[in-house]
């Protein structure tokens, strides 16, 4: 573990796509610095460019204006210092769970690979499923395997693109706890893009609120609560309604009491 590595600095970042020969600005003047080991949640309605932002950090979208720096170096393409978990698990169906977790490992001996795979399957709670095929896993288990795959390379930054978006509500809450446990264990930077306000608060040290057309950062809210967090506490609910307010979804007279 490299303490102090994995600082992400985004300065005056803008990005536009060409749609029907016209430029469409998806990100406009984004500025944020994420120190190593932080957990940052990004929320916003669809089309606010949050996924594009993630893809820029990942290195899949280039040709941006401004700076996107990791440890001071401009991002020019994908690299193993960043890992990604997509919304769909994207496990290769023709590889076993173990082979999928080893997918990103390169130039390691068979023995080393074996050790890393076992270690990470254990971390995500999938020991015993090494030789299963992805089609035999439930949605939550497949997403665990995808997390193991992303972590196997020991990235400095783990990007999570709505990783729990397709899971049912109960599995989702459980996986949020699991993500928190994994984050506390790995001590790496995690950036989570989500639609779910509660998820963003539950996991984030900071919640970044984005608004759309073009995508800008509207507000950054610090979440000062200790972990593990209580979703039903008064403070939690208050921050939640504060964020919902940003999306004009707030209730006019919140009816919350703390006794």
């Amino acid at each position: 573990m490299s303490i102090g590595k994995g600082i992400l600095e985004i300065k005056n970042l803008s990005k536009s796509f060409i749609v029907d020969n016209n430029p469409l600005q998806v990100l406009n003047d984004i500025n944020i610095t994420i120190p190593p080991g932080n957990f940052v949640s990004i929320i916003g309605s669809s089309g606010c460019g949050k996924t594009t932002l993630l893809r820029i950090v990942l290195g899949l979208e280039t040709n941006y204006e401004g700076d996107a720096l990791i440890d001071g170096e401009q991002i020019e393409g994908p690299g193993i210092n960043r890992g990604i978990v997509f919304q769909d698990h994207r496990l290769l169906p023709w590889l076993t769970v173990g082979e999928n977790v080893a997918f990103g490992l390169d130039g390691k001996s068979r023995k080393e690979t074996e050790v890393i795979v076992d270690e990470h399957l254990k971390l995500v709670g999938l020991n015993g499923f090494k030789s299963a095929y992805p089609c035999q896993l439930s949605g939550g288990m497949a997403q665990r395997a995808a997390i193991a795959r992303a972590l196997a390379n020991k990235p400095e930054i783990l990007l999570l693109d709505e990783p729990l978006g397709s899971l049912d509500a109960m599995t989702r809450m459980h996986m949020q706890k699991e993500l928190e446990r994994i984050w506390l264990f790995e001590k790496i930077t995690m950036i989570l893009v989500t639609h779910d306000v509660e998820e963003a608060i539950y996991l984030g040290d900071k919640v970044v609120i984005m608004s759309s057309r073009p995508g800008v950062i509207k507000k950054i809210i610090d979440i000062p609560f200790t972990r593990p967090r209580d979703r039903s506490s008064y403070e939690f609910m208050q921050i939640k309604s504060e964020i919902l307010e940003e999306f004009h979804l707030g209730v006019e007279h919140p009816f919350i009491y703390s006794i």
Partner: protein
Amino acid sequence: MSKSLLKRFEWKDKLLALIVPLLVLVAWQSAVSLQLFSEMILVPPLTVMNTLVDLARTGDLTNNIISSLKRVLSGFLLGASTGFFLGLLMGLSSLLDRFVGPLIKACKQVPQFALMPLIILWFGIDEVSKVVFISIGAFFPMVFNTYQGVSGVPKKYRELARVFNYKSFRYLTKVILPGALPSIITGVRHSLGLSWMFVVGAELFGSESGVGYMMVWARQLFQIDIVMAGLFVIGIIGFTMNIILQIIEKRVLRWRVSFDGRMA
């Protein structure tokens, strides 16, 4: 559903598949018994059976089958490998696809039997022309299925490979080829099936051995029993090839789930 029950169902299916052939056999025998046709034209099933046994005993049949299979193998290997590589390249490079794709599609529309006179003109009447003819038959299903498989590997997996810095060889062997494999295997099956049909066709055009040759020669001598025995052999061998490939397919594509949730 328990496994034994499932097995029994499969057996039942196999028995059901025998009903129609048996009915055909009964109809055939009845037509012979009722003397609807001359026995010269419609040979009784039993006579065909006896002829088959005789042919097998003299070793003629085995020799002819072996020389046909040799041609199939060379033609298939030549045509299918060419088709595979071209399909792979077309699937990987849309530029190449735009260059040669339409041409290949156009060529496929030409009935390949129409090429036989030209092939004989160019390659002579002996083995080479037969192998070339078979390879043309083997080429088309392979090129199209490989192309479809390779270009159909979902973008999300290609992107994943990019994220993990997969380069050429590793990308090809770990992502593209396994993803295209179901389609490639379909290509192999069709390709081999067509090779087997084409060998018989090629042998009809003049040769000194092979199952097709055996049939032409028998027809000229009006030995219809041998012609029918030949048909039977062709059918059985084609069927066996297909079954073997199906078994291989099942093993190689273990990771696919059939619709009822069982592993394929």
